């Protein structure tokens, strides 16, 4: 009973700030010391929709996160396949290498690669931003996909091969169905991580390419609670749409095969 009330309390503490955030998006007047807004309305939402940067930021965020997810998976899947069964370096060194982006300060990596990206004319471009996001999302994706490869093992694929299956048959009927849940999780996480990046988008994009965090941060910093909350809700909606879409795309193929 005591444990359940602790869990209830924890959930209440999680929910409270979220409710306040939602209330700020629909409040037209909420002066101190009122506990709930004095007036409700769609004024803040209308104001946000009329901002010239709103739709570009939503679209840019979505496109960059989706492209980062594709690039991250295309890089992580073959790399994880090799690394899951490799014997040329110690497992500990490999883990350390994959996790280094979690350890090294983002601001140090972003600002020094920015100097290289300037030389290569990648600053202010989508390519530059997507590549810099991929650096930050790779450890998350590698962690999950490596784990999936290790769990699957090589047994099934080897059995199929010795029974005469062709490589694409093995991929289509064995590897992909077994890997799909892990890949869908990795894709969703990559999308979320890419969408919330501020520093790489700011420094590599050079302020030319607007995304949701780039608009949200100054509003939050200046205490523009209404607008900042409205952008936050849009942000969360874009996250949900992206994650569900990726799950459908990756999981869908998997289910299609089964039937």
């Amino acid at each position: 009973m005591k444990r359940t009330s602790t869990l209830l309390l924890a959930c209440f503490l999680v929910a409270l700030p979220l409710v306040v955030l939602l209330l700020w998006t629909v409040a037209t007047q909420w002066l101190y010391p009122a506990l709930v807004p004095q007036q409700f309305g769609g004024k803040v939402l209308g104001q946000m929709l009329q901002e010239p940067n709103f739709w570009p930021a939503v679209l840019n965020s979505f496109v960059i996160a989706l492209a980062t997810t594709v690039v991250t998976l295309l890089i992580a899947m073959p790399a994880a396949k090799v690394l899951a069964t490799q014997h040329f370096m110690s497992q500990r060194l490999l883990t350390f290498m994959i996790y280094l982006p979690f350890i090294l300060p983002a601001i140090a990596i972003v600002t020094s690669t920015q100097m290289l990206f300037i030389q290569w004319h990648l600053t202010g471009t989508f390519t530059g931003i997507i590549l810099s996001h991929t650096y930050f999302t790779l450890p998350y994706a590698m962690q999950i996909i490596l784990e999936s490869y290790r769990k699957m093992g090589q047994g099934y694929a080897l059995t199929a091969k010795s029974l005469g299956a062709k490589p694409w048959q093995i991929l289509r009927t064995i590897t992909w169905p077994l890997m799909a849940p892990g890949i869908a999780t990795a894709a969703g996480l990559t999308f979320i991580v890419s969408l919330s990046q501020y520093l790489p988008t700011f420094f590599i994009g050079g302020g030319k390419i607007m995304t949701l965090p780039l608009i949200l941060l100054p509003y939050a910093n200046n205490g523009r609670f209404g607008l900042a909350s409205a952008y936050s809700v849009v942000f969360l909606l874009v996250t949900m749409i992206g994650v569900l879409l990726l799950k459908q795309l990756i999981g869908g193929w998997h289910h299609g095969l089964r039937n």
Partner: protein
Amino acid sequence: MTKKSLLFLGPFILLNSAVILAALFKTIQVSLGYYPVIGLRHYTLAYFKTVLGDAAFQRTIGYSLYLALVATILALLLGLGMAFILLKTSANHPLLANFFKIPIALPHIIVALMMLQVLSQSGLISRLLYQVGLLQQIDQFPLLIHDKGGIGIICVFLYKEIPYVAVSTLAILKQLQLGYVQVAANLGATPRQIFGRVILPMLQPILATLFIILFCFTFTSFEVPLILGSPANETIAVTAYNLLTQADLTVRPTAFALNFIMSLICLAMTLLVLGISARLPGGRRHREKD
């Protein structure tokens, strides 16, 4: 290594190891004073001396260390506690257990905004205290945002990291519950032996990993202290950001020296924690005493 595995690994190495090495090379080069864009071509340790000798930079580093250590240790303790709670309750209350995990997916900027709306002097808690008569004036509410102690900043990290630690350790706790503890007790192990031989060896490696990830993130985090921090007490990443966004390029070598020093602190802390973890029960280098 075959040609095929090189081809498979190449892009990963390019975007992971090559980026790190290139960034490290640039950081060292510029922080040592080689920055031809503004005519600096002579290597010098002057910028490192500036950063390490200046009282303001020292304060910045010390303050960031304080925030990172407090937030990380509290998140680990409370997260582990919540993992025990989830272990016992998640079967009966799956909905609540899943709801508790939501903060993991929320971006730091949004959580910082939410803390602003709840903890600031005109925030929800202040309004609540006013309504029940505990406050007569708004400025009687203690400063929790832009304060010297960084309470607001710590709250953001706790909000996001307690569920993260709970979820990460829950899997291990489930294994423990599957009988290891009972088996040890049945075989006559004392509570101390059960802790030292069963619980600690299974839990400490994941706690060490979590400590490293959380410490390095909070120590150099930028968005949260920017929104909630006190201008008098800057954190290390905010200081670096302020230097690096100036039009004046002559401050860049100093900023890169600061970048290099914070990277070194993160690496040193990582190696320290990995070293300690390896020597504890369950670690690679642990020696049985008896």
